[in-house]
């Protein structure tokens, strides 16, 4: 249970308690290597903005330490679905969610769940790089400081920048402003920043759409590396990118009622070469979108 009530001094942090329970689960005999554990599961999720239904009956499984891509024509609700996973939609007052979203078995929308804690465990990288007007170091250290990191922050910053493939380029100028970097570097800075809170899942909302092709390629290579440690969910307009970089794909589209829904999901290879649904085939072969 994600606990947001004050706990008496001396108790271990609630997240650690939950984690110990997860460790119990992991101690059970594992499934075959091909079928990974589910990190995030969306169960019968529907989203409403006031009376307008944005997406309906979303059922998606996101496997651990894989890249899962959401693809589909613009306006079909991919970003909305992505943002439910870190409860960013809560910022809109008229937003309402029905259904459940489970992160390693815990319902993120449980009444007792605190969105602030959810967002530490589920990181996000945005479409337009948004580094703070602070030094590179302070950017990466931000999440750690805010969340009460107990270890050595310098080490954390270096580790995060290394994992984001940015360390070598900035190690001599950590005090410079994050805004002084190029677009691609800024986005990698944002990734390093997100990693620094040691999230379980990293959400990426069209992370390359504001970047040039070279920077895009760097980010995609980075994703291949990141997935060894983190579960990644990416929304992308770029089908080739989804085909290149993701392990699983979910294809969404807008129905006649203007609400988005999942048409098909599965291993990326299958979706692109052997789709089961005609709509999917039409989309991936470029007949609409």
């Amino acid at each position: 249970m994600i606990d947001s009530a004050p706990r008496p001094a001396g108790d271990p942090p609630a997240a650690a308690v939950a984690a110990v329970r997860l460790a119990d689960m992991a101690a059970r005999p594992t499934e075959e290597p091909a079928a990974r554990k589910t990190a995030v599961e969306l169960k019968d999720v529907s989203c409403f903005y006031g009376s307008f239904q944005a997406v309906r009956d979303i059922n998606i499984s996101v496997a651990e330490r894989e890249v899962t891509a959401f693809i589909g024509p613009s306006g079909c609700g991919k970003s909305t679905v992505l943002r439910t996973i870190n409860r960013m939609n809560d910022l809109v007052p008229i937003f309402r969610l029905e259904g459940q979203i489970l992160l390693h078995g815990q319902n993120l929308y449980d009444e007792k769940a605190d969105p602030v804690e959810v967002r530490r465990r589920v990181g996000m990288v945005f479409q337009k790089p948004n580094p703070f007007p602070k030094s590179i170091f302070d950017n990466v250290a931000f999440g750690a400081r805010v969340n009460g990191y107990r270890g050595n922050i310098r080490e954390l910053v270096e580790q995060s920048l290394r994992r984001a493939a940015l360390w070598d380029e900035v190690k001599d100028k950590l005090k410079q402003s994050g805004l002084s970097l190029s677009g691609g570097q800024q986005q990698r800075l944002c990734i390093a920043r997100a990693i620094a809170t040691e999230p379980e899942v990293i959400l990426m909302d069209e992370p390359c759409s504001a970047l040039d092709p070279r920077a895009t390629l760097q980010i995609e290579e980075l994703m291949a590396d990141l997935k060894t440690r983190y579960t990644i969910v990416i929304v992308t307009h770029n089908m080739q990118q989804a085909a290149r970089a993701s392990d699983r794909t979910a294809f969404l589209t807008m129905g006649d009622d203007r609400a988005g829904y999942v048409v098909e999901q599965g291993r990326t290879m299958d979706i692109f070469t052997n789709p089961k649904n005609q709509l999917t085939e039409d989309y991936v072969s470029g007949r609409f979108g």
Partner: protein
Amino acid sequence: MTAPAVAAAATRFDPRLAQRKLWGTIFLGACMVAIGILLVSLVLLLIDILRGVPWLDAQFLTSYPSRRPAQAGVLPALVGSIELGLIVAAVTFPIGVGAAIYLQEYARDSTVTRLLRTNIANLAGVPSIIYGIFGLAIFVRALALGTSIMAGALTLSLLILPVVIVASIEALRAVPNSQREGALALGATQWQMVRGSVLPAAAPGIVTGIILAMARAIGEAAPLIIVGAVGFVTFLPTPLAPGYTVLPITVFDWASRPQADFQGIAAAAIIVILVIMVFLNVLALVIRVRLSRNIQW
């Protein structure tokens, strides 16, 4: 992340959510207190002014100042304020709107234009009393207008000119370019376009700006003290004759006297000022709404 890694991560962070959220609540409370203080201050101000209500009657509005509070009135001050306001409006209208039209419709982006703009912005920050001194030197002495309403009005016009210019520029800017292009495409000259298309469309905003500036001028006292308005005037002022008073100066004169009754009539005069200002604000609002209704983009 694997389960052990999740567990390890969990112990490295000490989120202490409840404590952090408490700070947020305390901050929000501080914001409420601040707004509460502002609200209470305004309320106390209004209550303080209410002490003038018993003194406010027809006799008050139609009498001349007197050494005895019970018989004192604001007639010369009222007349003076109205004359002042009208002259200020009449002067700032052509000059302020003219300057705004130049800056918005004619001026190209050049050093001179930038100089003009920054200059107007700087003038808005000059203390009102400095305008008084300037007015004393130029209007009272050099132009020999003496201590007349005209001198005072011209001084105040300079004071509020930046306000009128800025408000008019905003009103002109709000007119969509399609209006300008439409007129020019029909062969109109620039002035014809401005006068025929842009000005009528910007009229509500401009008129509102002038009325609000007038309201501001009627409340001013400091510059007028310098140019010679006095408190005790026993005749009705005319624009060019020396000697006049306005409501704020009367308030100043009466408030400076220790007797409690004078405080009372000072408050009554303040109520008159505020009523005029509220009236002008409402008028500006009504004009803007009614004139805007005739304009559809």
